[in-house]
């Protein structure tokens, strides 16, 4: 018999009306070493990535967010109870450290989309390079323009990331930022925000949106701290898993 694990939490002794879990299975609280794990029984060997299953996972994790700040497990975590107990016992210091880090916080997501120039060729032509002579030189000049364009976009993306980070730095406990200057979704940021600061955080993001009308913002939250729950590196270190 396997268990599907949704999230792990401290300071959680009882489970209220939890929504149904994967495949409609009832969710229960499993106490392991003073920590609580939300689990449901699973009669399957693999969890299909379907809309219903993804939403069920998210709903169960979210259901305890008003009681505590949990560490979510990634979608598809099927384990035996013995494996789960072993995992938690072996990782308890790291898990408690993570729980302390996220305590009292929620995750807010900011994605920034920019318009990669559809008239990119015209913009690239504006980049000054030596006037080419002949087909080979023209090819090299175009290549040079392309490289300079890439560098320019990378610099712009880095500027956006630094600007956003600075804008909310007083209101965030931690952040995870991914920058992809060559793609429309140039920046994906997760901010760990104390609940008491949430209103101020939203105001700051609202101001940021007004200050940079050339950028499109996709903001969402509050989420459980999915982006701040990974202890995979510590696990690899301890068990030599690569």
């Amino acid at each position, binding site marked *: 018999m396997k268990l599907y694990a949704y999230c792990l939490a401290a300071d959680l002794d009882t489970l209220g009306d939890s929504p149904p879990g994967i495949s409609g299975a009832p969710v229960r609280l499993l106490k392991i070493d003073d920590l609580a794990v939300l689990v449901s029984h699973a009669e399957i060997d693999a969890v299909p990535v379907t*809309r219903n299953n993804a939403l069920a996972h*998210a709903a169960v994790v979210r259901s305890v967010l008003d009681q505590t700040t949990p560490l979510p497990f990634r979608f*598809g975590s*099927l384990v035996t109870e013995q494996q789960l107990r072993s995992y938690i016992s072996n990782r308890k210091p790291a898990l408690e450290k993570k729980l302390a880090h996220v305590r009292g916080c929620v995750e807010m997501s900011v994605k920034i989309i920019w318009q990669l120039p559809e008239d990119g060729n015209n913009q690239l032509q504006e980049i000054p390079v030596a006037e080419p002579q002949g087909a080979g030189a023209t090819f090299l000049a175009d290549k040079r323009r392309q490289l300079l364009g890439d560098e320019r976009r990378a610099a712009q993306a880095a500027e956006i990331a630094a600007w956003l980070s600075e804008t909310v730095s007083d209101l965030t406990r931690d952040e995870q930022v991914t920058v992809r200057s060559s793609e429309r*979704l140039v920046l994906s940021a997760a901010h760990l925000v104390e609940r008491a600061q949430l209103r101020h955080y939203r105001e700051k993001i609202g101001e940021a949106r007004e200050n940079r009308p050339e950028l499109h913002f996709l903001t969402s939250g509050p989420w459980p701290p999915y982006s701040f729950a*990974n202890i995979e590196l510590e696990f690899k270190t301890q068990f030599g898993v690569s």
Partner: protein
Amino acid sequence: MADFDHAIITEEWDNTDVSLLETLDHVLNRGLVIAGEITIAVAAIDLIFVGLNVMVSSVETAREVLRRREME
């Protein structure tokens, strides 16, 4: 703290598809990993693709997990 019941997508993007994508981005790409115990099946996928990188990265994550399992 009742306002924590739901993740809120800003009005500019407030539609079901994007809400689903944001959820997928969180549950598929992030969270505690009990190494070797992520068992998902992508064949039954019924997700909506709208071209955002969040979706691409989620699918790539799923494929990577399956690839690793096949190598085991």
